[in-house]
């Protein structure tokens, strides 16, 4: 077990360097001079421009830039943005907001997947199953931003049940609406996975044996059917966690949430290498950690899985 965790962490090291290098290179290769871009239409004073270049290491060759960045990264200096803020400060402000949003969305997604998938699986081909299929089809074919505008219009404006935008007020309650909309647009995959594995496990031999033992339906459904069907749903949820953190740009834009999506978007358009790379690196690390945790969770869910 311990060897397994150690091995996974060691495997994460090349992943870390690989991603940071790739991201660094891609932002570096983007056309345009970031310093010139800072000054807009004005022509910068060459001395000022050179000073700025030196400050951001832009006068160095690519590989040196990367190595200097890495040195800073490991000494805890994440650099400054073009506007002079510490990247670490920006991160500390924006990151918890996004994490809150995504966590809420993922929990909602998981609950929707498991509950609807379980009922659909148990009532395969009956009324609930058919309705759930139609609803799922509609929800998964509507683009996220359309769903968000619709939610804003009805829930926020017409019915007044939730704030239309989030703004500075990033409490759980204020972000419930965007989180719910995200969950509704992504739960379909998990729901179908749950439904499929429920259909499979309710016909399993051990379920018949459980009935033969004298157990009731009420006990068999959660203990022998739902419990055995969770693994694929959990994998899917974990995968969506990573994807959602990286993909909140649209949601944060529409609901005006001051999370990393917005910061990242601005940084990319301005070729702010340190900001982009730092954010992406943090995302990568989170992704790797979540995946290790999920793999460890498998062993809890299915005792046949052993790590060696």
């Amino acid at each position, binding site marked *: 077990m311990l*060897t397994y965790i150690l091995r996974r962490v060691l495997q994460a090291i090349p992943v870390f360097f690989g991603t940071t290098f790739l991201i660094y290179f891609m932002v570096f290769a983007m056309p345009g001079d970031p310093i010139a871009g800072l000054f807009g239409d004005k022509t910068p004073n060459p001395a000022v421009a050179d000073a700025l270049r030196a400050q951001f290491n832009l006068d160095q060759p690519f590989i040196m830039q990367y190595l200097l960045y890495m040195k800073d990264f490991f000494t805890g200096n994440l650099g400054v943005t073009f506007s002079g803020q510490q990247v670490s400060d920006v991160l500390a402000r924006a990151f918890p907001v996004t994490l809150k949003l995504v966590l809420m969305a993922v929990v909602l997604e998981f609950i929707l997947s498991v509950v609807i998938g379980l009922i659909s699986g148990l009532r395969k081909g009956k009324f609930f199953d058919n309705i759930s299929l139609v609803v799922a089809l509609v929800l998964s074919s509507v683009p996220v931003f359309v769903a968000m505008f619709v939610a804003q219009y009805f829930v926020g404006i017409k019915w007044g049940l939730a704030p239309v935008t989030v703004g500075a007020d990033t409490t759980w309650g204020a972000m419930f609406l965007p989180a719910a909309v995200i969950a509704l647009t992504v739960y379909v995959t998990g729901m179908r996975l749950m439904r499929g594995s429920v259909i499979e496990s309710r*016909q*399993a*031999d*051990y379920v*018949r*044996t*459980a*009935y*033969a*033992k*004298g*157990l*009731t*339906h009420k*006990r068999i459904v959660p*203990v*022998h059917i739902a*419990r*055995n069907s969770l693994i694929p749903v959990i994998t899917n949820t974990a995968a969506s966690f990573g994807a959602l953190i990286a993909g909140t740009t649209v949601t944060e834009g529409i609901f005006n949430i001051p999370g990393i999506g917005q910061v990242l978007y601005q940084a990319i358009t301005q070729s702010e290498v340190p900001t982009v790379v730092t954010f992406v690196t943090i995302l990568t690390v989170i992704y790797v950690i979540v995946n290790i945790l999920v793999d460890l969770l498998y062993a809890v*869910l*299915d*005792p*046949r899985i052993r790590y*060696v």
Partner: protein
Amino acid sequence: MSDSPVTAVDLNQDTDVLVHDSHNVDPNKPLVEIRDLAIGFTTQGGVVEALKGVSFDIFPGETVAIVGESGSGKSTTAHGIINLLPENGKITGGSVKFEGKDLAHAKKSELYKVRGRDIGFVPQDPMSNLNPVWSVGFQVREAVKANGLATNKKDVNARAIEVLKEAGLADAERRMAQYPHQFSGGMRQRVLIGIGLAANPKLLIADEPTSALDVTVQRVILDHLEALTRERNTALLLITHDLGLAAERATKLIVMYQGKIVEAGPSLKILQDPQHPYTKRLIASAPSLASQRISGTHVDHVGGEEAGIDVADLAAKHERAKANQAATPVVEVKDLTKIYSIRKGNFKSEPLRAVDNISFKIPKGSTLALVGESGSGKTTAAKMVLGLEKPTSGDIFLDGTNLAGASRSELFKVRRKMQPVFQDPYGSLDPQRSIGAIIGEPLKVHKVGDNASRDARIKELLDQVSLPTAVAKRYPNELSGGQRQRVAIARALALKPEIVVLDEAVSALDVLVQAQILQLLADLQSDLDLTYLFITHDLAVVRVVADEIAVMEQGKIVESGTADEIFSNAQTEYTQKLLEAIPGAGIEWGDV
């Protein structure tokens, strides 16, 4: 076959079952009365009747066995009694009276009370009938709690341990926290028997309780089951495909065929004096120790009827076998060893000698049977002969060529001469390809002939295995198990091999189909002068196919010799144990 269902004879008077009545029931009143039970399955093509009016009684403390081939409705009957049919199954008529209550029309809540408490159930496959994600202890405790045998945690646990101990798990306390995958098949079946008997039910339904187990384990489990049910005066309904086993264990025998009871009565009487033609065929087909080596019957090739034994042919065969012994063996295995390393965690591993220094020879045109329990290394040995597994050390000679040092391309050429047929006719054929494509693939891979000549060869092969040529256009799921195994044999023969390795090739088949396939193999052997390496755990089958036998135990060959020598005079205790474990070995079978 008579159209009216046969009602089982009341045997209770002439059985000498020890009746120390723990259940307070009248021993002369049936415990279960099944009348005209009909069960249908809804399929795409409408409702298929699986049971067409079955009637029989089970008396307290009595052991009744239902025998029949797969699809005869024997398992459906068992599941129908406690109303545990698959979702598309439904009781369409008749009644199942258990102590006067009709279970076929009972409410769900009433069924919950009867299941487990009054009627226990032991399922067929110990591998799939325990939930893999819960510990064994959890699953036993669950049964104890559900049947109200104990309520507080401590009592439940104590009772669960007791249940497992009674079922023959000596170290139950230690093993309670373990999961099903940490148990062997036999151990798991003990757990399931323990669960089935946990509430001391009046009736125990055992659906093929030992078909997935080795013969020796089977014997131990059945002995134990018999002792437990006798001690508690529990009635036992035993479902099995094995006539010998049924006769040995049950006082009353019910023979089912196509959803109906065709014959019922005292076990020995049915075995020795069967009345119905189907029962007669079953008895004739079941291989037993008294059977003879099947030989080819290419003259009057009927492809499916009983194995006729031609004395002259047998003699000729014997002559040939003698002559062949002088010739160079086709296959010769010398000091073959295979060591696997088993991971123990923490970077440590332990060597496992799966095959340990074995040697054998197979003369041309004869059959060597490699027998042993599961885990004895027989399949690993076969894989190495086929070149599918690399030996750790030792040599395999094929027509004098050593395979050990052969290169990839040499191995490819050698494989033409040597083809396998595997156990599972469902798993060994690609469901997405037509039968013609499956049989023709080896020809394609080895670039034999053009399309037209390949098609001709496919037709010829189908003809050799007695399948209509139209089958070539069909797909594996449209064929029965026996037909699929014929296809697998045709595929093996496509390249005109000299050697066919049959790895448990008939183990998954019903006795009647098994007899047909064994006859086919014998015919092909005499027609094409094939050499067989026959891997099996079933000694009764070995009796009818083998010229020579090698018995394997824990990777070693512990005994070898001609079939007659082994069967008449087994030297090692292990072989004797294997022979004794064959169900029905001690019973005089009817001559039909």
